[in-house]
């Protein structure tokens, strides 16, 4: 029997491949953003696209996020399927009106008559001393606002399948990639950022969580880079006889609430890990979901390990004091299972 050779791709290559395949399939798909052309996107999400499709379909923009994200909204309404890149999610401040008052609301305001099929990609996350304005994740903030899907891949495979789903979706999709999952040569090496990715197009459904590791003692629910950290912690814990189930939510809108409930039914304990700020965010929502749907199954109060409610400090020891990591996850899981 022939064993298929692995096709190892970094997450950034998986994303640009997904975009390229959709651009080949659908002439209405095009890309706009700062440094998406020759540079290939600061985090590589559009690498190679300019050479393949030319400047009419891979458009470098001025630093005018309100104008080009708004233009993506308009173009989507008028028959295109734009992909606009907001270089860092932290920059949403200069263009949020187009995102949440327009991209996310036009379909509803039109009584369902107008569609806004676009993807807004953006880089999230810290851990490399980029300071308070370039390190946030902010997925909870966007998930709070109705009208846009919020997708957070953690692996190269999911990244490609979710990107293709996002492009084909008739709704606006915010596609948030953590810089630490991209497999970039200039970031701290991350073996989990490279994996086997099929060449042919495929989809991963938006709104379906994925059990990245099965276990019966405790559920660790999280997204994005923290999935990698949780998997590292789960390996350590397994050595101590604690079987952690790592639930990758993959999207916050829609949130796969059933998967959270199902996993808690099985493990009876829930730890939510979030690189986003602690209060009023994902961790609270996931825990509420477990309490609403699996209250009688919980053997202990759910626990959250999240970024404290402080702006992100630059200095390395300060940032690492705040950031969840594998060790902190393992400690929290041990305490939760009472060991």
């Amino acid at each position: 029997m022939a064993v298929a050779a692995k096709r190892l791709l970094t997450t950034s290559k998986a994303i640009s491949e997904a975009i390229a395949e959709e651009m080949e399939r659908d002439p209405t798909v095009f890309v706009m953003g700062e440094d998406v052309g020759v540079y290939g996107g600061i985090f590589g999400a559009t690498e190679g696209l300019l050479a393949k499709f030319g400047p009419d379909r891979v458009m470098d923009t001025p630093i005018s996020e309100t104008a080009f994200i708004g233009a993506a909204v308009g173009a989507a309404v008028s028959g295109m399927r734009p992909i606009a890149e907001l270089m860092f999610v932290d920059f949403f401040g200069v263009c949020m009106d187009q995102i949440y008052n327009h991209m996310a609301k036009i379909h509803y305001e039109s009584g369902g008559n107008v569609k806004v099929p676009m993807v807004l990609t953006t880089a999230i996350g810290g851990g490399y001393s980029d300071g308070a304005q370039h390190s946030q994740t902010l997925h909870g903030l966007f998930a709070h606002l109705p009208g846009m899907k919020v997708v957070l891949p953690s692996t190269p495979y999911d990244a490609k399948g979710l990107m293709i789903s996002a492009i084909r979706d008739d709704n606006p999709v915010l596609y948030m990639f953590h810089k630490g999952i991209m497999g970039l040569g200039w970031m701290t090496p991350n073996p989990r950022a490279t994996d086997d990715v099929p060449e042919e197009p495929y989809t991963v459904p938006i709104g379906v969580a994925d059990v990245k590791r099965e276990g019966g003692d405790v559920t660790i629910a999280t997204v994005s880079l923290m999935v990698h950290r949780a998997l590292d912690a789960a390996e350590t814990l397994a050595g101590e006889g604690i079987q952690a189930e790592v639930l990758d939510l993959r999207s916050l809108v829609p949130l796969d609430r059933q998967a959270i409930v199902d996993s808690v039914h099985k493990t009876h304990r829930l730890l939510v890990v979030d690189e986003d700020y602690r209060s009023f965010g994902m961790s609270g929502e996931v825990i509420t979901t477990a309490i609403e749907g699996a209250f009688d199954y919980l053997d202990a109060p759910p626990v959250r390990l999240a970024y404290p409610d402080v702006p992100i400090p630059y200095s390395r020891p300060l940032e690492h004091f705040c950031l969840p990591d594998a060790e902190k996850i393992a400690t929290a899981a041990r305490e939760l299972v009472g060991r």
Partner: protein
Amino acid sequence: MPSDDVLRDLHRQMVRIRIFEEAMVSVYQEGKTPAFDIAAGPVPGEMHLAAGQEPAAAGVCAHLRPSDAVTATHRPHHVALAHGMDMSRLAAEIFGKDAGLGHGKGGHMHLFDTETNFGCSGIIAEGMPTAVGHALAFKKLGRDDIAVSFFGDGAANQGAFHESLNLAALWNLPVVFVCEDNAWAISVPKDKSTAIPNNSDRGAAYGIPGVLVADNDPVAVYEAAGEAVARARRGGGPSLIEIKTDRLLGHFEGDPQLYRTKEEMDRLRERDAIRAFEGRLVETGALDEAGRDRVWQEARVEVDAAIEFARQSPYPAPESALDHVFA
């Protein structure tokens, strides 16, 4: 023509900035070889250096007092130093140390100095509205201080640029807007991002003077800024100055710069504003060769001391991350 003293000051200022930036190039590489890792070394994170853009900082800030407010960008060191920021506390902040301006909380893109009324932002064009606010406060408080906002050519396509110019003009505020046009915004050349060749022309849209300094010459900057600063100080309102300048290094350290040619980079090096200016000073006798060499030596000593101070300083306590969220 400014006096020889002013010319020598401009030269000294530019040289110490250049040496600081070049020192940052090598400090930044520490711990990042053989494999580059942005998170590693004594100075992690992004590093945007301003080598080549010294004339703008030196020429404008020569007219300022410490109580004048200055706002800058993600590329702030040259402006900070020219406005008088303490080099050791700047270096310590860049190293993430407790003795830094912000106890390591801000880092190189987020420098705040009460001594020199300096602030900067890593969000493009977002230092401009705060400069307008500084000027508004000065006017309300009856102070004759002014505000200066430095920003890149890329920032002129942001809404904040236009809103700030209009507001400053409308309220006749003492602001000098200084656009450093280094022809690039990361990998995007200005002619691919901006509908007109000169941002100075945009002053007309708001009824304020728009002055173009067509080359990277500190004297030309000094003269244009002198007028704009005097005008602002006497209540004559805001102005916009655009300076054509050169970014000698990558957008950030580690930038492979595949978007521009080696010829272009060599050409910029050849026309290095400091060397050109220095040559003129020596030619006219404003500076002799020994004096020139002394400037470079003294600047090296100053920069070495600042970096040594930063290196030897302790890190803040990790749990201090939780302090300073509120006053």
